[in-house]
């Protein structure tokens, strides 16, 4: 191969092939995905993020939660995601159109968070406690004390937003960012059953036929 132009044309062709073949094709298929309109209730799903939750998404992004948490539930029978109750169904592409930045993640040093808002115990107080002092709830997770305002409580005038008042009289109040982040985490629940979210289940007949 002596021709420089040939090398360049080839290098161009290879990268153009993968870009159009993978990225642009996926964009063509899914880039225009719209909310699903429930034919009976006439409601739209997925529900968009509230303003506060969208601010929380930005906090999730800037704190790099994606370093240790995925946001994708794999289908029944592929990994233990459903069995661990990380979701009731697999995640589908439509679930993600409500987020401006889609961070499905690639590391599960922490648990999956895609449906963390749907879990029974997931009220705001639970999340605040988790962020302020995770050591008792989630071993391995760092504390996010900087998301809280800790100051001397004035007796009789404790903030109604205070998470708690310590024994030596300090109140711990979530900052605006903590509130936004918790609103985002609480918004994470993919519960609507889209037609395409039907899990793939191998029927017993098929298994026997295959053997």
């Amino acid at each position, binding site marked *: 191969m002596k021709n420089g132009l040939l*090398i360049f044309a080839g290098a161009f062709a290879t990268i153009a092939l993968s870009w159009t073949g993978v990225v642009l094709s996926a964009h063509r298929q899914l880039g225009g995905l719209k909310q699903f309109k429930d034919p009976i209730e006439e409601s739209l799903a997925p529900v968009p993020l509230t303003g506060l939750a969208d601010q929380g998404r930005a906090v999730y992004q800037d704190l790099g939660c994606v*370093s240790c948490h995925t946001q994708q539930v794999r289908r029944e029978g592929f990994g233990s995601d459903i069995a661990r109750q990380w979701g009731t169904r697999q995640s589908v592409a439509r679930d993600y159109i409500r987020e401006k930045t889609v961070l499905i993640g690639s590391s599960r040093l922490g648990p999956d968070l895609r449906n963390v808002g749907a879990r029974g115990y997931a009220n705001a107080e639970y999340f605040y406690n988790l962020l302020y002092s995770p050591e008792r709830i*989630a071993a391995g997770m760092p504390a996010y004390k900087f998301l809280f305002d800790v100051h001397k409580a004035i007796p009789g005038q404790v903030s109604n937003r205070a998470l708690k008042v310590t024994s030596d009289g300090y109140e711990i109040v979530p900052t605006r960012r903590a509130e936004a982040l918790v609103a985002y985490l609480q918004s994470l629940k993919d519960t609507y059953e889209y037609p395409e979210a039907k899990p793939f289940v191998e029927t017993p007949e098929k298994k026997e036929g295959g053997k």
Partner: protein
Amino acid sequence: MNPPDDNDRAEQLEIDASAKWPVLAFFGSALLWLLAGGALQLGASIQLHTPSFLADCEWFTHGRLAPAAQNAFVYGWGLNAGFAFSLWLMARLSATALRSGGWLLVAAVFWNLGVALGVIGIMTGASTSYELLEMPHFVSLLLLGSYLLIGVWIVTTFGVRNTENVYASQWYILGAAFWFPWLYLAAQRMLIEVPVRGVVQAVANAWYVNGLLGLWFVPLALAAAYYFLPKILGRPIRDYYVAVIGFWWLAVCAGLAGGSRLIGGPVPAWVSTVGAVANFLVVAGVVIVGVNLLGTLAGHVSAAQKSTTLRFILLGIGAFFLTAALNFALSLRGFAEFAQFTLITELRDWLVLYAVFSTAMFGAAYFFLPRITGKVWRAPVLIKAHYGAAVLGILALIVALGAGGWQQGLLLGNEHVQFADITRALVPFLVLRSVGLILLLIGHAAFLINFVWIACPVNFRGTETAVFRHPPALELHKT
């Protein structure tokens, strides 16, 4: 390649001298980033087994420290070292001096400014959270602008070549020089400037990450292997005629393989299937490279072990095959189900960045730095320390991430195991990971000391001037 003829020799010295300052600027800043990134990486690694470490300082929270470390490593060390190596080798193989190198110094300043702002940006909260694209958007303009200057220099150096033939290392360097800006520009555009909708972002991100590893880091490592093996052993590449097929094969597959990172994810099945198939097909290309490189090495391993450069290159070649095997395994659905999202996927990327690419750059630097500065390495014991630390560190990380990831996969797959128990079970492996990173850091510090001695323009410690033997003549068959 280079008959031991005195005219050629003088010309080579001139070429090496012309590359001196740009190469030193890029490689010196690369080394500083290697240490800075390594320290950040160690901090982030310690946080995984001791979560309270630096947790109360927002700048150093794990979710910021980890990507900051990775970006410092990839863009600070990886790209800078790649620039230094590519510029030098391209000038040498094109038998032409590197002209007007002053512009490259300008580019080096702006590139490093961009990386520094990017890393600080991540730590102060401007992270985009897209893997390997976490730096805030404004930095990308600085990086792209300075990259253009560097890339153009690589290409024009090739354009004014005085050789008739174009060698394999040149294909790989040219390819990488062209692929990187395309990948970077397209990813920036699709993820940050005009974000695509929904999971297409995940597809674009996977394409970028896989492309950056497979179309920048791997090609440069291979360029080094294809150059130094014949150069130092004095044997031509075995079955060289198939090298060109290997090159194109790897180029096509590496681009398409990105989707394999999304197996089981919320993307259309064809995306991950295409990626998996590309990772299966790439084996043919890896075999070709194996025939070339291992065929050249066959029977001469002990000779290769005598050269510091080749000892590092051999590590890189070994890791290249290991990476291909791991990519193959992770593309099998059964194994992906088990190992996805564990430390094993981290191992795959780390192997490319460190064991394949960085070792190749170390090897290359041990060859080109004495030649461009005209001085010998001052402390051979530091070279030994660097190599020893690299070998031990790589082994420690392979065990920590491989065995740790295996354990993690087993426990994650069993829904009866509480998540907290998985975290606890991983602690010994994560500690071993920190130990490995400390070892690597020691090796890098040793290398930096030697580098300062050889690169310092003032020779106050009286470092000896280097005298180079003629490279061994190639055993070519006369036709």
